[in-house]
């Protein structure tokens, strides 16, 4: 059996989104079964089935290190404070 990852896209500008995964013996069976499982209520207009063996998986160790760089995370609070200060006519806190 192969494992297929299912992606659906609605009409318009929305991107393809992951909708689930399931097992099937081959591509044609996957096509036949995915339609009634994932789009029986017209949840999407386009359907991608990706054989999981074709997915490039990046090692977790390689992905993780950037978690310790808070300076890359901007919640907008500094900018908001400067704007507020300017509006109020008082010098911004540094």
């Amino acid at each position: 059996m192969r494992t297929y990852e299912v992606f659906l896209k609605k009409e318009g500008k929305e991107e393809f989104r992951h909708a689930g995964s399931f097992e099937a013996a081959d591509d044609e069976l996957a096509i036949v079964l995915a339609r009634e499982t994932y789009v029986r209520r017209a949840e999407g207009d386009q359907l991608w089935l990706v054989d999981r063996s074709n997915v490039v998986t990046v090692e977790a160790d390689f992905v993780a290190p950037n978690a310790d760089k808070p300076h890359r995370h901007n919640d907008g609070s500094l900018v908001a404070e400067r704007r507020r200060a300017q509006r109020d006519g008082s010098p911004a806190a540094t």
Partner: protein
Amino acid sequence: MIDGAREHLLAFADDEHMMGQGHTEWIGVAPFLEEDLAFCSIAQDELGHAAALYELIAADEALDADALAFRPPHDYRSCHLVELPCDDWADALARHWLYDTAERHRWAALGGSSDPGVAAIVERAEREESYHRRHAETLAARLLDAPSDGADRLLGAIERLLPYADALWEPVAGEPQTVDAGVVTDASADLRDRWRADVVAFLRRPVDWDALDRPSQAGRTIRSEHFAAIHDRITEVIRIDPAATW
């Protein structure tokens, strides 16, 4: 509507009704989840086709479609294939494939119907049927692909059901008039030959059609031994409350 046309459409409606009901027996117990969903979608489609055909006849007679769908047992015109219990998945799949392969030709013969009401329901039915066939053929082809227990079971089931499937083409009373009037564009015997060619092409081996032991249906006027139980079940609600809606 002439008598033969009524009989023809009613027989098709009854087949769709029984087939849809038969498929629903697999809800929740199909071999795997995705198949469960696919098979119950197909059941809903077949029941939808039955409803469309019953409504067409009912409108012509100022009747309620339910009065036709749930009439007394001896008035049904279903073929014995659709009345068979298919408690084994191999039987259910074999029947699904045999029946839906036949349906292609039955709907095609209604596509150019002189009755505009008939012609109007064909397009949707054919769209749905193309999925039914792709589903049945894909599953069956995959199972028959290589020698296996699954292939043996499916072939055994096809062999058992073939006489019943071939008897599906037994015409109802008044068929020549129905064809003359153009309500259906082809005689059952011609449709049967096309279907037989499909079956042989798919199985990739000859079939001795004359040797089949077909059930006695007497122009679909005789119900099989299994029908009473189905009728009991499908009329359960309407017997409790004739005004029930669903």
